[in-house]
């Protein structure tokens, strides 16, 4: 398998916490422009995998490459984010004491050092971009609202909006529809498919309807390694997957 055409390349990755193996010899490859759904029961290692990719957790062993050549294990979160990997958390994490607009402004692509931020004036291009994103995430009329006052679903969207503002090459989206109504779930699926047109995306989700709606290749994780990979129908037909989900 060649790394050259991949956006993300994990090979033989393992990590353990106090003797507990959260990730066990995990290998996963994502092509450029691909959207992938990752499923798996609780404790399968989905979030830990994201931690490894985004530099929050260092793997004990194994290779993690971004864009074919960048070794992610040598960089920290901020550097990885600057390379173009965006991440949405399982629990929506937005800056609650800032307005929706300010949240987006802080996420907007641009220089990330202190002094430019200190003397920053918003340009028309930036305002334009924020307006666009507000349109995409359907929060145009809430731009002045404090993020804390948004509903759960709106926070999820705002966080996705912040990812968009970052303009990453790869998006890691952890349970984007948790706690959403059916209508919101549908909206989110449409939104993600939109995004997937010009970004690579990994979506971790439990909601099978949502995964089906995305209609992409599915990887099922179990006990820190890949159990099954393929279309949703293929994976859900896999006996081992059924066993893992339904119990022995």
């Amino acid at each position, binding site marked *: 398998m060649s790394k050259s055409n991949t956006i993300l390349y994990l090979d033989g990755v393992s990590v353990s916490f106090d003797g507990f193996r959260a990730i066990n010899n995990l290998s996963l490859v994502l092509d450029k422009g691909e959207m992938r759904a990752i499923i798996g029961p609780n404790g399968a290692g989905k979030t830990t995998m994201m931690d490894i990719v985004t530099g929050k957790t260092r793997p004990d062993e194994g290779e993690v490459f971004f864009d074919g050549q960048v070794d992610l294990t040598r960089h920290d979160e901020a550097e990885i984010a600057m390379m173009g990997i*965006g991440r949405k958390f399982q629990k929506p994490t937005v800056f609650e004491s800032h307005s929706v607009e300010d949240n987006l402004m802080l996420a907007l692509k641009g220089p990330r050092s202190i002094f430019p931020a200190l003397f920053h004036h918003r340009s028309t291009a930036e305002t334009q971009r924020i307006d666009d994103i507000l349109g995409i995430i359907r929060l145009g009329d809430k731009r002045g609202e*404090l993020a804390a*006052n948004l509903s759960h679903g709106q926070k999820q969207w705002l966080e996705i909006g912040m990812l968009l503002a970052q303009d990453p090459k790869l998006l890691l989206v952890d349970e984007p529809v948790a706690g959403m109504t059916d209508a919101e779930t549908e909206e989110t699926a449409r939104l993600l498919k939109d995004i997937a047109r010009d970004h690579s995306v990994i979506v971790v989700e439990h909601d099978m309807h949502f995964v089906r709606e995305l209609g992409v290749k599915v990887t099922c994780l179990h006990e820190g390694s890949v159990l099954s990979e393929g279309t949703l129908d293929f994976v859900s037909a896999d006996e081992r997957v059924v066993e893992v989900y339904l119990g022995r």
Partner: protein
Amino acid sequence: MITQRFFGADRRIAITVLVLLAAAVIVPLLNLAVSPTSAFYIPPYIVALVGKYLCYALLALALDLVWGYCGILSLGHGAFFALGGYAMGMYLMRQIGSRGVYGNPILPDFMVFLNYKELPWFWYGFDHFWFAALMVLAVPGLLAFVFGWFAFRSRVTGVYLSIITQAMTYALLLAFFRNDMGFGGNNGLTDFKDILGFNVQANATRSALFAASAVTLALAVLLTAAIVRSKYGKLLMAVRDAESRTRFLGWLAENVKLFAFTVSAIMAGIGGALYVPQVGIINPGEFDPANSIEVVIWTAVGGRGTIVGPIVGALLVNAGKSWFTGVLPEFWLFALGGLFVAVTLFLPKGIVGMWDSWHGRAKALRAASLAAEAGADPEEPPAKIVRSAARTPGAWSASGPEPQPAE
């Protein structure tokens, strides 16, 4: 809408700055130009006292920048204040020249009787005001930079950070106590004569120092407001509320913190430098961890995460302390202790924060934006004290939603 959003806070800052500037002009006038028998006369005693409070207010404001806006609870800010004070004190010592009791033109008195043969190298240059002024900024700034560089890179957060700042000030306290350090040991630096050629004990000098303190504080308010209002300021609060989120957006949270910490330390140092000529002594007692805890209390009483709050807190608590120690010398600790308990229970956001909340109920929208500026909990304040396991944003800072085990 955006301008309107900040209008309330803006007006308050403008009023504060105006009051400070007015005080800088009027108080010296009423002290110097009005006859002592007049009802408007302000005795030098009050000028010195309030001048001292203003320096404390500057220190509290400096702490608020890192604690209120960035969630770094420093229990060692008194150290930066004291270092600034020592830099100024060293200048004032050198200005004594041959007027010391032993008449040694170079060595301060304490060095003479402890048999120093020559001036230690770190005392060089302090006979020039510009050098001392530079050191007032550089020493606390550098210490904060180095300390912060290591601590923030290692991602020391929450209570761990607070305790090592406390360890820092405690270590400095012990170090400055040592007579061998060459800073006068426990007695510190004292017996000052001149500052910039003016007698430090003269009324006019005291008034000038008062005015300088008031103007500096006004400038610090403007500076803090500008920082907080900028994109960087928003980032600062973002780091406070959800540090890991800012990292995943590509911001180097450690640099964000480091900048605020260093600026804050420099502000504290300036406060100390203004404080020393007004009280006439600097000694290691200023490094006492208890002092730094008191600064935290002033800030909390006034309302952290607001610009005016720490100033109000510092003035009120210190005025209360001065008054109580005079009229209730045996019982003032009960009063002060009771005050702290009461403020925490009944004014959890401090005086200014509470004021905002009460006003907020009438004007819901404005309250929300004010709270945004204040960085306080944007939810409606509980009508009565209820038990809640919810974290107040910025309580320990840390990184947003991360539960901090056992804090």
